[in-house]
């Protein structure tokens, strides 16, 4: 039986599933319910400075996009950090940690970018018994206008500086939470690394306008007829998060830096993918906010089952296995040739593969053969792009079949070669030509 327990920066938790800093972790009541449901850890809702707390809007905070059957695919929010006072949060954290010693409890912090602010808060957080701190450099709305959150996260020098303060004035492991609202995620990650961060976590939410109300012409959520950009999260952001995690995992400067993966984790499979790209834990917000805390049961069981099937005893057995396979486009093997193949027994004849290929790709799928509705790939036209696979409503109905070495590609008339050959070596590449000359 697979062992899901994790040791991330010395912080132990029974499983890698943590709740991200957000409403699900806003107070003792929620956090204890989460622990009861089985979550391995929580990152407490971001704390601010002592004194009067921030205020949230009193109108709607969320907007969303949906897939079929109103499955929530992307959530957008304009919520701020905790709107409860610091004392209450710290007291509750202390009590909760005492009652749940085996679960991870991380304090998320966002205070102004001044040394004194950080010096003041760090010892108070440590007194709660929290296992680590997470620096929230990510929030894209409300706090950034006050010079915090993503306003800091977008300036690598600030990240480094604040991280250094936290390492200097505090004793707890430091996780730097990165904002995706930046062109190249490697720069803030490198800055955190230089500042001595023990880990990075990513992604925070993505700046977004989720929809526009076409009656009152306000962005949603509409607060008395007006809206502002919010932060986007949920299943829709997972691909962006995975890419950013991979960039950091394979960057020579940050390779090996522990990562807590966040963004759209909704099932065990999502979590396993983040782990395969090097993450030691994953954090979840939207999935819990959509379905409640119980979903962690599926995540735990699904991950265990996957690991058992694969024979992995611990998470370390497969963590990072996908990292070496992430490469740049120019190193992809151009001699790898695939053709789409339709399983006629599974095909329900909806014709979507045909029209997708016909209208928008390579006219490689029939719709009618001998007067009968029939969908079949014409190998002499198929470029192997995989579009049909993605639009087919039946799983595994179309598969991409690699051609064997020595076969002739009916599209190009060329023989499939055994050698690996990429763009850097290709005769059409001006750079490759130059090098050869």
């Amino acid at each position, binding site marked *: 039986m697979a062992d899901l327990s994790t040791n991330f920066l010395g912080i132990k938790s029974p499983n890698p599933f943590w709740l991200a800093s957000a409403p699900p972790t806003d107070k003792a009541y929620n956090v204890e319910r989460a622990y009861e449901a089985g979550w391995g850890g929580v990152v407490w809702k971001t704390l601010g400075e002592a004194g009067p707390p921030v205020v949230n809007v009193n109108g709607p905070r969320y907007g969303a996009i949906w897939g*079929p059957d109103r499955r929530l695919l992307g959530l957008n929010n304009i919520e701020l950090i905790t709107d409860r006072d610091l004392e209450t949060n710290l007291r509750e954290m202390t009590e909760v940690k005492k009652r749940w010693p085996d679960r991870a409890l991380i304090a998320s912090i966002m205070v102004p970018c001044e040394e004194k602010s950080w010096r003041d808060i760090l010892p108070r957080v440590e007194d709660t018994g929290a296992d680590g701190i997470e620096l929230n450099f990510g929030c894209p709305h409300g706090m950034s206008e006050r010079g915090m959150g993503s306003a800091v996260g977008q300036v690598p020098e600030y990240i480094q500086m604040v991280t250094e303060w936290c390492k200097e004035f505090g004793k707890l492991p430091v996780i730097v939470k990165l904002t995706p609202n930046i062109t190249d995620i490697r720069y803030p990650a490198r800055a955190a690394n230089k500042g001595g961060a023990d880990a990075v976590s990513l992604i925070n939410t993505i700046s977004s306008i989720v929809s526009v109300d076409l009656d009152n012409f306000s962005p949603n959520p509409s607060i008395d007829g007006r809206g502002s950009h919010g932060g986007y999260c949920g299943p829709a952001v997972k691909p962006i998060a995975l890419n950013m995690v991979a960039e950091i995992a394979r960057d020579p400067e940050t390779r090996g830096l522990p990562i807590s993966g966040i963004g759209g984790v909704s099932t065990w499979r999502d979590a396993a993918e983040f782990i395969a790209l090097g993450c030691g834990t994953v954090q979840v917000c939207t999935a819990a906010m959509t379905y409640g805390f119980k979903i962690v049961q599926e995540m735990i069981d699904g991950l265990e089952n996957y690991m058992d099937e694969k024979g992995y005893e611990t998470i370390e057995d497969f963590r990072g296995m996908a990292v070496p396979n992430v490469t740049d486009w120019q190193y992809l093997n151009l001699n790898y040739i695939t053709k789409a193949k339709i399983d006629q027994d599974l095909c*329900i004849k*909806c*014709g*979507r593969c*045909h029209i997708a290929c016909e209208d928008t790709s390579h006219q490689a799928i029939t*719709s009618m053969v001998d007067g009968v509705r029939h969908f079949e790939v014409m190998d002499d036209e198929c470029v192997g792009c995989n579009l049909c696979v993605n639009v087919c*409503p039946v799983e595994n109905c179309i598969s991409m079949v690699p051609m064997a070495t020595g076969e002739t590609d009916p599209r190009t008339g060329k023989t499939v070669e055994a050698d690996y050959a990429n763009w850097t070596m290709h005769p059409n590449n001006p750079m490759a030509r130059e090098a050869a000359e």
Partner: protein
Amino acid sequence: MTSTLESGDVRAGRLSSAEYAENFSDLHPPLDHHEALVEADRCYFCYDAPCMNACPTSIDIPLFIRQIQAGNPVGAAKTIFEQNILGGMCARVCPTETLCEEACVRETAEGKPVKIGELQRHATDTYMARELPHPFKRAASTGRTVAVVGAGPAGLSCAHRLAMHGHDVVILEARQKPGGLNEYGIAAYKATNDFAQREVEWLMQIGGIELRLGQRLGSDFEVEDLVNQYDAVFIGVGLPSAYALDLPGSDLPGVESAIDFIARLRQAEDKSTLPVGQDVVVVGGGMTAVDAAVQSKLLGARTVSLVYRRGREQMPASRYEQDLAAAHGVHLVFNAKPARINGANAVESITFEYTASEGGKLTGTGETFEISADQVLAAIGQWMEADTGELELDGTTLARTDGNLSLSPYGRKVWVGGDCAHGGEDLTVTAVEDGKIAAESIHATLAG
């Protein structure tokens, strides 16, 4: 009350008024907004969609479902009406299980087709409930006149299309109400709330159509008259007369044609006034037979037997219809034909003979059985009674050629469609399509 099992027990008021109301309410309650969106999400927006090809009127089903899904039910309704102006009635009465929904790829995939009929009803009902302007505009008047005989689905569809093209249409209808079998035939629980009349009124909003009721072809006027008075003529008189059982005892009180029984039922505002037998036997195997049987049961008959002379597989009523009958407690009997009706002053029972089929020919086996009955409804087919003069017949129905043009000595002047035309499927939707095809052909001819 103790139930008496006496013969000749055909009476009204067997049920409480609440039971009548319940029994004759919508067979499928309309989808609400949420249900419609959930269902619309199931559609794959197929290419060259099989459902669309299976629809006799070629409604662009993937498009209208996508319009519902995208929050545009009004646009969805227009998509439907463009191909089928009686899309509202068709949504209620089409045997979708043998048409669009049978072809739906999700039927192949999961045995659960997208509920196309119910979505079509959602869109068309939404349109009509919003009391929006009529979706089509009449073209400038062409000054051409067309006579349409029969205000059933075929005639109405033809008239609407012709009016849209700017022709002046006069509908000549024998009955006192328009709608044809939509008004007098379709099962009550498929077209509740006077839908047939509301739909006709709505359709007439196009303008340019004059409806003359109580005008019977063959007695009030002849085809020849119309040919002389109008630029073109469309005949859509349906099959108004039922074949009667020709057996010993078939003239006993308690024996009648199922379509007369249904017509009376459809016209009765208060269903508790309708007499029905204690034990009813329906002879036949089509939609009329099923509807007569089910509605007898709904009126409070204690036992209803539906007896069909061939096997279940040959039964014209679809499996869905058969199951509907069975679910209402109708006893289905196959492979038996009526031999004689017994009774002194009224029907008391009916004797059947088992049948066998040899090389497609049906023969009696000699073995008989008897079912007690105080009412016998014959649903063994209808025929075209109207006197259609010189129009050529093919068998018992009107012959037709391309564009539903009738073969006649009048040249390109007379078109036919719906149940009275040869080779039809006797469905509302095919009648609508016939009317539409004829209208386009008439229009092309008049413009020619």
